[in-house]
């Protein structure tokens, strides 16, 4: 009887730890590979020169001063939300309600700009700052309370809170509609610029940069060096261990989510007061979800978040540019983003595992 003995075709085996430079090399080569694969795809679909398409992407993101700022604004927004998500995620509390938390922060800010426009600017800023944080914190507090007291599922709860916030935004837009019948709020206080971030050092975005960088540093220190940060890490790892150590788990959950929501609310403040000067459902525009990817890819390191956000913001504006310049379908440019993200995420697999392919096929009598 003849029998063919085969090894399995591919086996996945865990790898030993890689040195840091090797990890970076794997990640860089994954980006390179992604660019090559995208080039093939681009050429296959459009017959355009891929290099030209990449150049268009770069000029789309960084071509002019306005474009640079628009890319940076996007990056700051994503970073800010991701920073807000970091403590919750570190605690394994899946806060996917950033979208809603950003929106309520934005609504409150817009409300302050509309109703309190006559207050002196410093006071108005303090009020907007505090109110947006409070609103975001409240939005996160509800799911946190239910999680802490009755162990409800935070994923569903925070997700549902998003829809409430979106409805609230629609309501606010209808209420503050300007001009009448436009179904938008329009630019608030266009003439007086009340409640707008001031122009400092020649740029109106100075405050945006300053606030987000400050948050980056503060959150990094908070998570890494403070007692609170330590408690968050312990609770995230195991609630049993936390109880054993004498940590009041409910308190930590609620406290952390108040912080997480507050920072997300602050992102809404920055978006309205510092960038768009208006409120609509696109104030958050899905960034609350994109920021989840940012938070995860950066492994909750806030400085890495800046880099990842920059990459995503670049890809986003670059894709928009090639869509219009090269008359590519919008979806085609999204495909390129998809390919690049796929390769970056995929590289993590190759950092942790290796594949063993079948080496021989033997015949045994």
């Amino acid at each position: 009887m003849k029998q063919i003995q085969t090894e399995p075709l591919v086996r996945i085996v865990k790898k030993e730890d890689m040195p840091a430079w090797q990890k970076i090399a794997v990640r860089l080569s994954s980006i390179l590979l992604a660019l090559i694969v995208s080039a093939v795809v681009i050429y296959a679909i459009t017959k355009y020169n891929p290099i030209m398409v990449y150049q268009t992407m770069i000029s789309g993101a960084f071509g002019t001063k306005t474009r640079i700022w628009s890319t940076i604004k996007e990056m700051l927004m994503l970073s800010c939300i991701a920073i807000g998500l970091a403590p919750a995620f570190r605690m394994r509390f899946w806060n996917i309600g950033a979208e809603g938390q950003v929106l309520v922060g934005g609504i409150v800010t817009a409300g302050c700009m509309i109703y309190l426009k006559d207050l002196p600017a410093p006071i108005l800023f303090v009020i907007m700052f505090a109110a947006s944080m409070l609103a975001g914190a409240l939005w996160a507090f509800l799911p946190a309370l239910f999680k802490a007291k009755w162990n409800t599922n935070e994923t569903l709860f925070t997700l549902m809170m998003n829809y409430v916030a979106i409805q609230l935004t629609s309501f606010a837009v209808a209420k503050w509609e300007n001009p009448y019948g436009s179904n938008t709020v329009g630019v608030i206080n266009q003439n007086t610029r009340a409640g707008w971030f001031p122009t400092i050092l020649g740029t109106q975005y100075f405050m945006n940069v300053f606030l987000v960088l400050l948050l980056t540093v503060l959150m990094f220190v908070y998570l890494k060096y403070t007692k609170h940060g330590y408690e968050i890490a312990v609770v995230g790892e195991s609630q049993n261990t936390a109880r054993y150590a004498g940590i009041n788990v409910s308190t930590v959950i609620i406290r952390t989510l108040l912080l997480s929501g507050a920072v997300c609310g602050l992102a809404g403040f920055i978006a309205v007061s510092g960038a768009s000067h208006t409120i609509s459902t696109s104030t958050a525009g899905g960034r609350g979800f994109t920021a989840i990817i940012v938070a995860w890819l950066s492994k909750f390191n806030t400085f890495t978040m800046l880099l990842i956000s920059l990459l995503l913001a670049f890809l986003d504006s670059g894709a928009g540019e090639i869509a219009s310049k090269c008359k590519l379908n919008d979806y085609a440019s999204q495909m390129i983003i998809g390919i690049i993200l796929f390769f970056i995420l995929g590289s993590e697999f190759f950092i942790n595992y290796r594949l063993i392919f079948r080496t021989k096929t033997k015949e045994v009598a």
Partner: protein
Amino acid sequence: MSEAAITLKNVTKTFGSVVANDDVTMEITKGEILSLLGENGSGKTTLMNMLSGIYYPDHGEIFVNGKKVSIKDPKDAYELCIGMVHQHFKLVDVFTAAENLVIGIDSHKKLNHREIADSMRYICDKYGFQLDPDKKVYDMSVSEKQTLEIIKVLYRGASILILDEPTAVLTPQETEKLFSVIRNMKEDGKTVIIITHKLHEVLSISDKVAILRKGKYIGTVATKDANESLLTEMMVGEKVELNIDRPDVADKKKRLVVSHLSCDNADGVRVLDDVSFEAYSGEILGIAGVSGNGQKELLEAIAGLQATREGSVVEYFDEKTQEKTDLLGKTPRQIRDLGVHMSFVPEDRLGMGLVGTMGMTENMMLKDYRSGHSIFVGKKQPKELAEKIKEELGVVTPGITTPVRRLSGGNVQKVLVGREIAENPTVLMTAYAVRGLDINTSYTIYHLLNEQKQKGVAVIYVGEDLDVLLALCDRIMVLCGGKVNGILDGRTAKKEEVGLLMTKLQQDKTKKNSQKTKKEAKS
């Protein structure tokens, strides 16, 4: 009868940088009972998992009945008549015994419950099992579940059975029963491989003993030529003193009084029922019992982690003033703040005692990271403590910042016990402190406990190995069904006596107890 059932040739298996099996070449004779002996982490289970299709070897060849085979998944293993009973049971709780038998069998025949039950009864009669085919798994005791796993393997026609630490969860009586079943299987011509690290069991059941050490095959000896010290030496690689010290109790003072302690689990089932006992300084109080009989809840209740029913009392007596402090209803933090130095080594080391993803340093500060007024955590002291424990207990780790879950079980336990002892406790509670540890580490732990005892600490040792309990403890309290089923003197108690108390509730005694409680309640 010396035909080989299984032959392994140069089998190697690695996980990352860890070599689990290193060039193992061995032979398993047909129709014999073979004990596979080795310390934890010596690669016994990995090696057997390659026979049962869980893992695939990196290198090497496997022959079954003289034919070279390739076992890619458990199905291949079954086709070769190899069946394995894993340490952790793989049963569906809501199904009956008979239903569990047929799960995963790829057959186009219609399910016939009576047929299955009949063939199950046939197997039971043949080998001497006792199990009702219609019993649901959630109603079964641990030993019944194990019985079912073995029947499952036989039902699928296995002629080579691999049992992974089958006696770890059994009482001495149940172990005896299992052994007689295994002998029946041998009579029937089956080949049985038992993975274990209990020496006396090896000697009593097997025909041959194969020994692995650090992934390498050391050799096979016929059981009749073996003795405990020879086997230990082969297993550890050096001579080991197998006696456990038991210093005399000195300066015995009341430290902890537990009375009428009762509590329910999350499902409302009474897991501790009117437990009363005292723990003294300078003494090791052993707690014996089949696992799951309230040991975990008892320790957690004392530590402030488990809600108790009304009427329960846990009192702590200060070492100097003998002042009484009530511990129940307080959180672990409040207990600490009262100045009660209670250390607790929980059963679930990485899930409760330590944070797996953190390094030694960060684990050192788990209980007192709060000290000081700064909002920042101080890392200097914990770092020094980590260095000290690493040095003194010989913790093998790449560094004190390496996540502790990457360490081996023994080293994890050294980190945990080291931290708990460093707090200068007056009460030290340990749950299954040596579970899964190699012989040397186990003896290190016994030594540490004795050291604490001599320092005047009240040590509570929840254990599962009766031989150790009888050799180490001054008194042994036996828990059964959440009740105290007797407290024995560790120096005079017999193993059978403890085994009996573990499984059989002393009826008259509990009645008396409950009457006593009622009387007290009335007055």
